[in-house]
């Protein structure tokens, strides 16, 4: 082999604490090294040209560049050597800047270390082999999981871009949390008026297939070629016949069903359509509350249904869809605030969550938009809002900020005054977080125009005062005094948590999640939409707290990523994957068991069982290589021999 070594000065970044010339002269003595030099800026245009020239002049078949981190410039230099006719994988980097020159002042020690890191790279390179990508076809369809505003946006953008969309929603209707809201900040425009048309677009778009009341059961495959099994949960209503007329709801005798859409502030019928603008507008029977389905005699809905859509024997059914990409937009749930004893463990009916309050204010809610106390139906005059209930609370292991509560609390305070002009609102807050466009102005309006009293401090206890009102005790930390407010209604700005089942879904998608169940993006700053599984993208709160504008933006961003992926007919595979040496494999299946991507299957070769790597699924982690006792499965570009060579370069004494 003929290897060329380039020890970069990086101006004074490296040369300041490493004797580059000496490293180059030492490197010249390493095995197979025929050329060693020390340019000023290797990554700059003349530096790259010098590499190309050296490859030609010295007939190099491998190049080592000792400079910055390969995480920075490996792709750059791979292209450089490729331009000069080498395979891009006949290149290695030694990181002598981030790992040497920048972290130690001792020139002598740094020079030694740099020289050894170059030796490491040379020994690795001597065992490198050219690697080639393969092309594989792409299924140009996308699965979007979650029909909240982020998922809706992603679905519409993809469909408008000509990509067929499969949209899966767990609830009976799309719309997510936004559909429950009354008005939205900071413009105080009606939530239903801006979301409604988008929901209708989803229903009407010819390229969108909507599965509501359905969940993702299994996912297999890889970028470009996923296969998704979807469970359509039994609705006991044949949706192909249901017209959404609502007759069944009028007649249903079981009226005590939990109204999840109304956040439990009212009850509903066992057969129900979540709300008038639901998409799809189809009825669903809640099994636990249905008399017929709990073995009692009823059957009223079946009798009154004009189209005969009721089917009490309906079972869950499954469909399988093939897609090339997946967008996860599973949103959030509110945390269970009843863990807070100081707020009464949920014992007091007039202490409610902010989302329940939205339903109280909403014209399509159970009170038709009149703010009335759940306990006695009276109009409250004194309303206390408590922020950060389950947010920024390390004692409950919820140190994160839920992001949008400050804003909707201000909105709710404003709307409360609009609804009940002689009311007084109080807001207990920790800090007001209003960094968006027009946001801070909005919170100031709540205080200055609407007379909302903002009290900086936490609430220590809420309890009924025995006279039909609630006593809210707290601290005003700005005055340094305890405060006590008598309230008719207390609204808790309950913190968010990852949606129920998010972790299980992440495992099906083979993506990571943080300690709180929010999905991990590929890079916090530079890859906020991608995940570490190729072809899987994120939109909305499932990735972390964000408000409606940010969720919509991320929905569009995810759609852009999908469209980018599908802009080509074929995808290039990563050649740094595992390969099985059939001669050595004994078919013991250890690699199959632990592959995180299910990328190893078994096949029969001349009557013997062997492992087989599915090239497009292998992500190149090398766990199999570390697992196989006979070394029969080797990860290209990080083979046992390559790593052993690196170890031996350092440790053969």
């Amino acid at each position: 082999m003929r290897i060329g070594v380039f020890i970069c000065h990086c101006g004074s970044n490296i040369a300041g604490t490493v004797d580059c010339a000496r490293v180059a002269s030492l490197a010249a003595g390493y095995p197979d090294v025929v050329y060693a030099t020390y340019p000023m800026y290797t990554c700059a245009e003349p530096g790259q040209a010098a590499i190309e020239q050296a490859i030609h002049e010295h007939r190099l078949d491998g190049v080592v560049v000792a400079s910055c981190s390969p995480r920075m410039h490996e792709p750059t230099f791979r292209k450089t050597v490729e331009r000069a006719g080498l395979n891009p994988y006949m290149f290695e980097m030694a990181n002598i800047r981030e790992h040497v020159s920048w972290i130690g002042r001792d020139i002598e020690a740094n020079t030694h270390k740099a020289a050894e890191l170059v030796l490491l790279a040379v020994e690795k390179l001597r065992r490198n082999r050219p690697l080639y990508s393969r092309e594989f076809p792409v299924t140009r369809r996308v699965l979007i999981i979650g029909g909240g505003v982020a998922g809706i946006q992603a679905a519409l953008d993809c469909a408008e871009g000509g990509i067929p969309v499969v949209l899966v929603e767990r609830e009976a209707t799309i719309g997510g949390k936004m559909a429950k809201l009354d008005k939205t900040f900071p413009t105080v425009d009606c939530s239903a008026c801006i979301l409604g048309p988008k929901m209708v677009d989803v229903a009407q778009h010819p390229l969108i297939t909507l599965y509501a009341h359905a969940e993702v059961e299994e996912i297999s495959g890889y970028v470009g070629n996923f296969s998704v099994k979807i469970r359509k949960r039994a609705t006991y209503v044949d949706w192909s016949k249901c017209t959404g007329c609502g007759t069944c709801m009028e007649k249903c005798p079981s009226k005590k069903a939990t109204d999840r859409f109304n956040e439990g502030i009212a009850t509903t019928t066992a057969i129900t359509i979540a709300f008038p603008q639901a998409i799809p507008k189809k009825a669903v029977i809640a099994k636990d509350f249905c008399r017929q389905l709990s073995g009692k005699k009823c059957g009223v809905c079946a009798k009154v249904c004009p189209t005969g859509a009721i089917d009490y024997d309906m079972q869950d059914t499954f469909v399988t869809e093939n897609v090339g990409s997946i967008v996860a937009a599973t949103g959030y749930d509110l945390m269970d605030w009843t863990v807070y004893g100081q707020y009464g463990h949920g014992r007091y009916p007039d202490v409610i969550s902010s989302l329940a309050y939205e339903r109280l204010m909403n014209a399509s809610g159970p009170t038709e938009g009149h703010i009335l106390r759940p306990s006695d139906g009276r109009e409250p005059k004194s309303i206390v809002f408590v922020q950060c209930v389950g947010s920024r609370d390390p004692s409950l292991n919820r140190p994160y900020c839920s992001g949008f509560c400050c804003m909707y609390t201000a909105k709710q305070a404003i709307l409360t005054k609009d609804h009940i002009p002689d009311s007084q609102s109080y807001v207990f807050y920790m800090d007001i977080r209003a960094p968006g466009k027009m946001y801070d102005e909005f919170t100031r309006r709540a205080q200055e125009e609407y007379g909302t009293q903002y009290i900086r401090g936490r609430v220590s206890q809420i309890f009924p005062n025995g006279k039909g009102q609630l006593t809210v005790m707290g601290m005003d930390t700005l005055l340094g005094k305890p405060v006590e407010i008598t309230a008719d209604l207390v609204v808790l700005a309950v913190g968010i948590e990852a949606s129920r089942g998010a972790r299980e879904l992440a495992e099906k998608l083979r993506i990571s999640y943080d300690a709180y169940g929010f999905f991990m993006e590929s890079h916090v700053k530079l890859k906020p939409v991608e995940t570490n599984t190729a072809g899987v993208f994120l939109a909305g709160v499932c990735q972390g707290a964000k408000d409606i504008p940010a969720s919509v933006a991320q929905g569009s961003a995810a759609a852009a990523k999908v469209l980018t992926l599908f802009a080509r007919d074929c995808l290039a595979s990563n050649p740094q994957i595992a390969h099985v040496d059939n001669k050595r494999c004994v078919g013991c299946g250890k690699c199959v068991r632990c592959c995180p991507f299910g990328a190893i299957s078994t096949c029969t070769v001349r009557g013997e069982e062997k492992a087989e790597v599915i090239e497009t699924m292998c992500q190149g982690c090398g766990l199999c290589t570390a697992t196989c006792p006979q070394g029969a499965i080797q990860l290209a570009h990080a083979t046992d021999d390559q790593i052993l060579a690196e170890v031996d370069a350092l440790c053969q004494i």
Partner: protein
Amino acid sequence: MHLAYFPGCSAKGSSLDYELSTQAVLNALGITVWEIDDWNCCGSTPAHAVSTELSSALCARNLDLAAKAGADQLLTPCPSCLSNFRATAKRLEDPDFREKVNALLDTPCAETLPPTSSVLQAIGELVDCETLAKKATISLKGLKLVAYYGCLMSRPPELMHFEDPENPMLIERMLEALGAEMLDFPLKTACCGAAFGIPKRPLTAQNSGRILELAANLGADAIVTCCPLCQMNLDLRQAQAEKAMGRHFGLPVPYFTQILGLALGIAPQDLGLAKLVVPMDALLPKLAPKTSAPNA
């Protein structure tokens, strides 16, 4: 079970009725305890504010006496004493601290100390509510009560390990089993302000006043307590609280042992009922023998 008993200094003075009723109830329930010989102040007030070592040394001596007499457990009626015992036992796990404490004692404190518990919790653990109901001869039916545990009984939770620290229910479960109507009392673990009884009297009056007012608003006949300081504060100083709140309460503040004792058929004079400043007399006629006592 060899149960040692530490009455605490209040028991021999301001809360003589708590002591009387505790002994009477333990006796009626067949729980035998023995008072540790030559016990001293637990160091709760005001020593702990001055010197942790000194306060702990006072406690350590009591714990040591109990340990050396072979106690399996040490009971005390007073939550403040209990809190100090537990805190001391915890601190003594640190060898450096133990050394400092031992330097203050004539004989070094025993290595293994008995676990400590409140009389309330011990009764709850030793006698289940069903048994309690069986042993009762008088029904509490017709009594509307609130239980007030005070701030110390459940706090700090990692030391006291008593029920849900924000919402303990033990007294409620006991007295409900005996027929009383127990009202949900949100301020059951609020501070009564006793610690500021001398330096900041208005604050104490306000804190106690809030508790009394809520109990009155809820329509309670009495506030049942388990802490000598709380009881004194709500009972003896009720007039001050009334002045602060501008309202008359006239709420009796008995100990839970006194109510238990009444249900168990112990005579009022043996429970020290006469010691209550706000008398309970108006309530006594409501009590009647159980109509169908299962073991009668």
